[in-house]
């Protein structure tokens, strides 16, 4: 069985973001980078499936500049067998369709039985790439999955809907799943596995070899949203802040009367 997991490297969302000089993306200089949170669930599910079925091979794919290899090493340490790095210093400019097309171009004719992606990325958050890959490969796909089971080629999954309701669905492999938070408990790589990961195959492919479509959309401008509402901001020593807040709550809400 062949399994593919697609991951993205994103900035740590707690970072202080700055706008880049051309104002069409954020400045990437001083950010800390990590694996897109949703993709950690995708990697974990891939590793669990590989463990479940006999004779499986698990490839992790990532598009981006050289630094994404650090994130790929985490996926390899979590249990992926090999990595494919699509090297692209300008991946941040590519739209979801271009990214999906490059993945589909790589994956076609490789007969992956299952593909896992995150449900969306934490930075762009388009929630498009996984589903587009499946459409381009012409295989069934299920998005926003919080429960996954695989048995003899049959995929049974639960999709998360609004208000805590889930939809129970099924399809036949080959198929693609986009993983929602909470699908499983992503493992932490152990030190021996981190050491082992260093010896695993990590193939680099130039993006130009796989990009065969036109861009459909671009970022015209990126900016900080205007602060709305004009809420009060309190700063200072914690003890003083507590006194201030209690006074405010007494004046503005009925709950401390």
């Amino acid at each position, binding site marked *: 069985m062949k399994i593919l997991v697609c991951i993205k490297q994103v900035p740590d969302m707690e970072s202080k973001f700055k706008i880049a000089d051309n104002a069409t993306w*954020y400045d990437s200089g001083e950010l800390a980078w990590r694996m897109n949170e949703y993709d950690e669930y995708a990697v974990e599910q891939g590793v669990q499936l590989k463990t479940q079925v006999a004779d499986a091979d698990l490839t992790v794919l990532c598009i981006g500049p050289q630094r994404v290899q650090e994130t790929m090493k985490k996926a390899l340490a979590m249990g992926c067998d090999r990595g494919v790095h699509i090297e692209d210093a300008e991946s941040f400019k590519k739209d*979801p369709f271009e990214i999906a097309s490059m993945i589909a171009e790589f994956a076609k004719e490789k007969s992956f039985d299952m593909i896992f992606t995150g449900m969306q990325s934490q930075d762009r958050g388009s929630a498009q790439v996984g589903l*587009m890959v499946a459409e381009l490969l012409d295989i069934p796909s299920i998005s926003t999955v919080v429960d996954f089971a695989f048995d003899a080629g049959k995929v049974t999954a*639960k999709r998360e*809907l609004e208000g*805590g309701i889930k939809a129970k669905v099924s399809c036949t492999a080959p198929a693609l799943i986009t993983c929602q938070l909470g699908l499983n408990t992503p493992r932490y790589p152990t030190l021996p596995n981190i050491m082992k990961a260093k010896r695993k195959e990590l193939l680099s492919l130039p993006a130009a070899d796989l990009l065969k479509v036109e861009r459909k959309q671009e970022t*015209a401008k990126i900016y*900080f949203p205007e602060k709305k509402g004009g*809420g009060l901001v309190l700063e200072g020593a*914690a003890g003083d802040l507590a006194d201030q807040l209690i006074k405010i709550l007494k004046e503005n809400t009925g709950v401390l009367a």
Partner: protein
Amino acid sequence: MKALLVAEHRDGQLLTSSYELVAFAQQLGADSAMFLVGSDVSLPQYDGTLYLADIDKYSEYNPAVHKQLLLDVIAKEQPDIVVFSHSSYGWDLAPRVSVALGAAHVSEVVEVVDGAMVVPVCNAKLRRQVSVKTAKTVVSLQSGAFCLSDDPEGTPTVEKIDTDAAARVVFEGFEEAEAGGVDLSKSEVIVSAGRGIGKPENLAIIEGLATALKGDYGASRPVVDSDWVDHGRQVGSTGQSVSPKLYIACGISGAIQHLAGMKKSEYIVAINTDKDAPIGEVADVLVVADLKEFVPLMTAKLLV
């Protein structure tokens, strides 16, 4: 400009979020038609053509078949823009339709500025204005971003549609939300824990403040996903929607999914080390502090 609005139906009912698509079309000044896989018994109040496929025949979740039904209508109507809700239905179907049309898909639109779609980036810390290069555009709208100013009204001209496209995914039914949770919708005070609590042991700090304020405690999704708090206490679009007199968000950055569940609270206090956290946008008061230091101090002062 012509818009095709993809309305939604769940478990026997038209979803009222469908009217947000009408509001969006009005704001663009676009003519519109509507598409719905739904039922005669719950039709939208809408003056215009409604292309209606029978949900009993085509099921709640059936992406390949819903896509074909929609593509047939698009071929007939030739809309410039196809509009979805950015919901579990919309974000699933929209990318499929956009690939089939060769159209750009702009996700989670929050506003339109000078004709350009604006979307959130990086947990809504940033905004991005998108320029589309294709003739047709597919968009999905952030929940609550576009609202009708008046109650919806009208009667659609229903045109029944069918397809013989084959299903690839089988819908086998719903699983209801887990029972046994705490009904936070009746709480007057809610103190919620976010990822900022750092570790499960710190939940006691949040519970302590909730008790001191005679309220209940809730949690954001990451805290629930980490199994630190039961799903029954989750506030947000996939948990409970609450509107207490006082909502205190502790270490919650303010993802849109969380805001959707609590922004109707009468008074909102956010406690966060990050002055730029999006929760600040809805908060009446933002206390810039480490909750682990601030909350116990506040609790102690309340109990004096």
